[in-house]
């Protein structure tokens, strides 16, 4: 498959040869956890410190100056507290959704809910209810693909609507993440960070293929087509790739 060759080529360029593919994925996950930690234990602490200072100021103003200035300080305090909640939500959103023991549909649903809650973006899961149970490893790869696509849709696409779809045929399934954001820049391949590479690795690892393309109307669609395990008694009758 063409994509596979390409993924490998890109891989050797950004990963030192000593790293095997799972290592690279592991590094990306670790990096995400590190960011979450820094947000939580760094930025949030600063904001909380400033909030405490503001609370002290507000008390001081109330006692020595008057209700007007004290109310302004309280207003700042309220806004700071909102900012703290946002930063904390963000720190959680950056923490990978727990996948273990969950079905793909379950974990994707949790992802959609987390995103909606933490980012104020409408993120929904549309699933055809036909997804068979998958291996844990496959589920993890798919959820991480969706997670990175969503992250990109929010941070680069500024999308306010994201749809995660799961369509299962007999022997193939397609996971797609479609956003209504600003769309891909011409040179997005040249800008690729860890995100696109890792999504490609993951798709490759489960025997699937990944496509990142502009949405026909607006935004971006990321599709991952992957094979489903053959159900007992059935032999892959319609194995054609969707699209």
């Amino acid at each position, binding site marked *: 498959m063409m994509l596979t060759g390409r993924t490998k080529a890109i891989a050797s360029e950004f990963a030192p040869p000593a790293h095997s593919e799972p290592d690279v994925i*592991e590094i990306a*996950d*670790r*990096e*995400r*956890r*590190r960011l*979450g*930690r820094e947000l*939580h*234990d*760094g930025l*949030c*602490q*600063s904001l*909380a*410190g*400033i*909030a*405490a*200072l*503001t*609370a*002290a*100021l507000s*008390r*001081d103003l109330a006692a020595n100056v008057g209700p007007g200035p004290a109310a302004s300080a309280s207003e700042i*305090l309220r806004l700071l*507290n909102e900012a*703290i*909640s946002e930063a*904390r939500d963000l*720190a*959680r959103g950056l*923490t*990978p959704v*727990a*996948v*273990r023991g969950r079905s793909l549909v379950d974990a994707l649903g949790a992802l959609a809910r987390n995103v909606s809650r933490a980012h104020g973006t409408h993120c929904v899961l549309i699933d055809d209810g036909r997804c068979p149970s998958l291996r844990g490893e496959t589920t993890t790869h798919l959820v991480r693909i969706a997670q990175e696509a969503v992250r990109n849709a929010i941070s680069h696409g500024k999308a306010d609507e994201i749809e995660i779809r799961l369509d299962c045929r007999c022997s193939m399934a397609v996971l797609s993440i479609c956003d209504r954001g600003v769309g891909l820049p011409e040179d997005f391949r040249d800008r690729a960070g860890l995100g696109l590479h890792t999504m490609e690795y993951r798709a490759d690892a489960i025997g699937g293929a990944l496509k990142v393309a502009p949405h026909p109307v607006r935004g971006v669609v990321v599709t991952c087509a992957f094979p489903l395990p053959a159900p007992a008694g059935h032999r892959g009758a319609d194995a054609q790739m969707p699209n």
Partner: protein
Amino acid sequence: MPKCPTDATGDGRKTLLIVDDHPVLRRGLTALIESEPGLVVNGSVGSRTAAFAAIEASRPDLVIVDLMLDRDDGLDLIKEIKTRHPGTRSLVLSFYDEAAYAERALAAGALGYVTKQQMETTLLTAIRRVLSGEIYMSEALQRRLAERYVSGHTLEATSTMRALSDRELQVFQLVGEGRTTRQIAAMLGRSIKTIESHVEHIKNKLGIESAAELAQRATQWVETARRG
């Protein structure tokens, strides 16, 4: 018998020491506490060593401890204060969820647990309570403890974690934050072998089979603990 808090300022005011590794937080906390008449912050430090130097020098009535210090463990610090300075009270102020850490903090010897999100509204009350010799905990925590006392068990996710020792939980938390074994060893001043042995125990106690599963579970735990 623990001594009553001494009157270190000589004018009836109570003295406090803040132990938190974040300077902006320390600054804000000092201002907030001192906006309350009768309370004086006579030290604010970021590490265990500095904390003991300050306690010995100024004998504060109350020490406010952050659980996640950069290099040291807050629970260890509380235990050590309790043994070395039984008359000095301690109160935890943490960004981590009460359900995840409060019971351990109380078991270690803290007399209260306040989360940083509720700081402006509850911290001063908690300080007053603890200074007057009572224990401070939120209503939610009181309810949870009472329920467990009555039913003998709890159904919460955090309950399986009770099998872990404080040290194991600390290692588990660090794994969930994305630290490598090597980093954890350096942070805790232990050998890599020791950390690996903690990790083995954690895996056994939680029925975890692989390193990947460990990372997953630990991440999930951190996520829950941050829910606060």
